[in-house]
């Protein structure tokens, strides 16, 4: 009778040890800074996305472990909210409003133009990795639409021509000069 071979199943107590350092640090710091908050998961996810630009799915086990939640719970939350992204975005995310007030002043044709100009559909990232296009349902700029937002900068009364100018200015590296927001004070 030959002995049955014993198979050891490695039980990993702490997940996330094999994460890229930047991701692991982002998660741990976000958790440590917000752990004491009531209902801390959303603030933690925001902190991670603010830092990495997205929430890599491979970080979910570590987030869950740190908060004593199941991975399913964290996955459920990340996927429920449109703002949290599970794919890395382009250098800039363009949030284009497609709600009614903007529709009333030409948002539908602006949307078609933007998709054509960037060569992508909503949620897509341009081939050069520069832009990600996202729909947004109201930026609260409803009397001065169509509106879009790039990096917390809001732009009103957008037209296809102004959209092209914006992209051209960005390509020329002049976005900071064209920036129009006091929000720029935010670090």
């Amino acid at each position: 009778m030959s002995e049955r071979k014993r198979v050891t199943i490695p039980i990993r107590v702490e997940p996330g040890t094999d994460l890229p350092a930047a991701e692991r640090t982002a998660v741990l710091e976000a958790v440590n800074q917000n752990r004491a908050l009531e209902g801390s998961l959303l603030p933690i996810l925001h902190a991670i996305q603010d830092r990495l630009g997205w929430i890599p799915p491979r970080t979910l086990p570590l987030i869950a472990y740190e908060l004593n939640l199941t991975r399913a719970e964290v996955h459920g939350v990340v996927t429920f909210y449109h703002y949290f992204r599970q794919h890395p975005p382009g250098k800039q995310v363009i949030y284009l409003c497609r709600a009614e007030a903007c529709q009333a002043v030409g948002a539908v044709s602006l949307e078609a133009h933007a998709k054509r100009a960037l060569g992508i559909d909503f949620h897509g990232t341009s081939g050069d990795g520069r832009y990600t296009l996202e729909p947004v349902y109201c930026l609260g700029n409803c009397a001065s639409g169509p509106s879009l937002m790039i990096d917390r900068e809001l732009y009103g009364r957008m037209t296809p021509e102004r959209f092209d100018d914006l992209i051209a200015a960005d390509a020329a590296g002049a976005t900071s000069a064209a920036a129009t927001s006091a929000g720029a004070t935010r670090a």
Partner: protein
Amino acid sequence: MSATVYIPREATALSLGAQSVARALAEEAARRQDAVQIVRTGSRGLFWLEPMLEVATSAARVAYGPVQAADVAGLFEAGFLTGGKHRLNLGPVESIPYLKNQERLTCGRLGVIDPVNLDDYRAHGGYAGLTNALAMEPAAIVKAVTDSGLRGRGGAAFPTGIKWKTVHDAPGAKKYIVCNADEGDSGTFSDRLLMEGDPFCLIEGMTIAGLAVGATSGYVYLRCEYPHAQDTMTQAIATAYAAGYLGADVLGSGRAFELQLRMGAGAYICGEETSLLESLEGRRGQIRFKPPLPALKGLFGCPTVVNNVISFASVPIILERGAQFYKDYGMGRSRGSLPIQLAGNIARGGLVERAFGVTLRELLYDYGGGTRSGRPIRAVQVGGPLGAYWPESKFDTPVDYEAFAGGGGMLGHGGIVVFDDTVDMAAQARYAMEFCAIESCGKCTPCRIGSTRGVEVIDRLVAGDRTAMQQTLLRDLCDTMLNGSLCALGGLTPYPVLSALDYFPEDFSTPAALQAAKR
């Protein structure tokens, strides 16, 4: 000489170039060696005039707008620092008819004060309401709010005082105040304007609510699409803490009120109060069954007041001037004033705060000046994406919760989106269903599945595929959604769909449909 110039730091003004104007102004003043103090304010909400700057003269604040950076040198040439003549001179700002003919009870400080300057806030009547409230019994505060007739400004119009009384009477060692600042309805921006232009007013209202119901902890749940409001609120909350208006011992009264700002993450449904509470607790924003009411079992199972930004912001003036003062405005059961938002295709879009009773027609034409495109108004949608589309025949309806409900619509949060005669109402109806499908939390079937089926049925209807049958099917589906959905998202999506179908049936009969009907 030294002059003070006010320029908004508010999002719409920024979206139209206010930051470049401020920068050009500072540079030009430095070049001319003029002593100019630039104060960044909220916006008055006269958006067709933004970026609008104001100059303090001995008589009044004189407005100029819309100003672009290129106009700045000319303004200096014209002597604008002393109210000089210029083609952009709008005269004393308070005399602009759009603003003069308003009743700004809640939004009176917007565009006037530096939003994060506490002294400025107090100099304009700020914290007088809280001072009065601190000298009152909690039950007396609740009674004042009840007597004022204030109803929830988020859209549901539930009497605020009754909600507060329920929380006041509810047993519980821990209670919460939650501000719903998830202003997701298209065509609305009054919450944002208030938070960016007068954040202490919201903080004061929430603190009073805390005193009234015995809650020591509060949250503002703000949508992440509002980064400018986030900055202003963050600054204001920190300032209020530093000055002792928030914290363990509010103004030395021995009563605590802690306030935190929390950011949403792009889910429209989180504007529904139970879904918002789920989100605050760190979960998916799926709605809860009611009962239990949040007033009894709300955040973390504790009695919770959930009110909209404008509801809370209306409380300080009620405590300052008395319930009767507020109640004297309005009509019927709608008391006080409503900050109405003119949006979409409108010539003079912006914020119009009027006592209830003003008609839609006055708002659209006297204030709004018709469409921005110059074409006739064909339809308006009042109350956000779940509000009915109304034709011209309904424009004499007064702004009043009951009058709107009686006309088959809803006033909601007071946003009015205007469309000209190029609008395709079948496309709007389809969008309403599509939006519901995108934003449904998925908990109940009529909303989750019905919305997707709704898009398909409208597509077939417009394509002319057995139109009579599709119409019956669409109406039946809407009936199921209206009566079978758990919350207002699925329950009210039929409003825009059916109103479009009822008032604009011709848009659902494309050439293809007409052809099919002939066969």
